[in-house]
C-alpha cells in the first residue's frame, strides 16, 4: 500500500538521487504538476543490473549499466527495502513551533514523545517529520494553550485516531496481557528456577549422567 501525506514536497533530495538518469524519486512532478512514475523504472532496471553483477562479481566500465554505480544502487535498494518507511516520504516543518517558556516546551516534549505518529507508526509524534505529525504537533500545542490537561490532550487524539496513538496503552480487556504478560513470564520463570534450585539441593552432586543428558 503506497500512501502519501506530504503535499508536493520540495524537500531536497539526497545527492544520490540527482545523478544522471537514475532520478529515482517517484514523487517527481512533470510540467503539468502531475506525478511521473516512469522514472522509477530506470532506477529499478539499473539496480537489478547492479544486483546481477554483484553476484557475478564482475566489474565493468563505470558508464555501463550494472557498473559500480549500479552496484551502489543495488546496495541502496537492498538497504532501502530494509528501511523503507524511513526514507519513503519526508518533509520539513515549514515553521518550527515557538514556545513561550521552557516549562511549556518541556511539557510539550514529554507529551508528544509518548504519542505515536499515526502514519509512520514506529516513530513518536516528536520524532516524525511526516506532514500529519507536524499538523498533530501543532494541534497538541494549541490544545495545551487552550488549557487542556495532558490526559485531555491524549483523550482528544484517542477519540480521533484510536488507542494506537498511545505508546502506553490503558489497561483494558484487550491490553491486560500486554501489561501483565511480562509479570506472568517472570513469575513462571521464578517458579522454574525455584524448583531447579530445590532439586539441586536434594540431588546428587553434578557430573552424573542425568545432568549431562542435554
Amino acid at each position, binding site marked *: 500500500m503506497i500512501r502519501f501525506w506530504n503535499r508536493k514536497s520540495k524537500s531536497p533530495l539526497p545527492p544520490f538521487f540527482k545523478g544522471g538518469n537514475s532520478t529515482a524519486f517517484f514523487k517527481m512532478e512533470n510540467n503539468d*504538476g502531475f506525478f511521473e512514475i516512469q522514472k522509477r523504472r530506470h532506477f529499478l532496471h539499473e539496480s537489478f543490473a547492479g544486483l546481477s553483477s554483484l553476484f557475478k562479481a564482475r566489474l565493468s566500465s563505470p558508464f555501463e549499466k550494472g557498473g559500480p554505480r549500479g552496484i551502489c544502487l543495488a546496495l541502496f535498494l537492498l538497504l532501502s527495502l530494509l528501511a523503507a518507511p524511513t526514507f519513503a516520504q519526508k518533509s520539513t516543518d515549514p515553521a518550527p513551533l515557538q514556545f513561550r517558556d521552557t516549562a511549556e516546551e518541556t511539557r510539550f516534549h514529554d507529551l508528544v514523545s509518548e504519542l505515536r505518529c499515526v502514519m509512520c507508526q514506529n516513530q513518536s509524534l516528536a520524532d516524525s517529520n511526516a506532514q500529519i505529525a507536524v499538523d498533530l504537533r501543532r494541534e497538541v500545542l494549541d490544545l495545551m494553550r487552550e488549557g487542556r490537561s495532558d490526559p485531555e490532550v491524549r483523550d482528544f487524539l484517542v477519540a*480521533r485516531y484510536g488507542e494506537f496513538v498511545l505508546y502506553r496503552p490503558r489497561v483494558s480487556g484487550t491490553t491486560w496481557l500486554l501489561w501483565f504478560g511480562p509479570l506472568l513470564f517472570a513469575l513462571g520463570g521464578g517458579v522454574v528456577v525455584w524448583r531447579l534450585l530445590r532439586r539441586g539441593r536434594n540431588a546428587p552432586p553434578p557430573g552424573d549422567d542425568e545432568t549431562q543428558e*542435554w
Partner: protein
Amino acid sequence: MSAKRWLPFAAFLLIAALLATGVWLSRRDNREALPSPLIGKPAPEFALPVLHEPNRIVTSKDLRGQPYLLNVWGSWCPECRVEHPVISRFAATKRVRVIGYNWKDEPVDALKWLERFNNPYWLVLADIEGGTAIDFGIYGAPETFLVDAEGIVRWKHVGAMTDTIVRDELLPVLEAAEAMKQ
C-alpha cells in the same frame, strides 16, 4: 526416556505456536491501516467551503437525511489517481452521494485535477488547512468514510478503493445501514 528430554521441544512448539498466532493475526492485507474509533459514532461536526464555490459553506447537518460516501483526496496524492476510476464507477451507479474531501490542497490544483480526470463527486468540500481532517482522524490520502442518514460513521477504508472492496465491504455495510433505518 525421561519427559525432561522433551522439554526443549515442547518449549520450541510453544514459541512456534505463539509466533504462528502473531502471523495469523496480522494476515490482513491492509494491516497498517488503523481502525477508526469513529465507527458507530456520529461523524464530527464540520463547516467547510465548497471547492467550486468558496463562499458557500456546507455543514455536516446539511448532509443528513441520506447516507453519503466521503472520499478524501488531494491532487498531490498519486494513489488517489489509482482509485479515481473506482470512485467514478461507483458514483456513476448513483447508489449514494459521493462527496469529495479535498485535503490540504491548493484549490487551483484540485480544480485542474478534476478537470483532467473528470469530477465524479456530487459535491467537493475543501479542507485547505486540514483542521477538520484531524477531527475525522484522517492521516493520509486516500481514505473513504461511509456516513449514514443520521450522520453516524458506518465504515472507513484506508488506502485506495478497489471494485472488490466496494462490492464486498462497502455495499453490504450500506445495505445494513439502510435496513436499520426502515
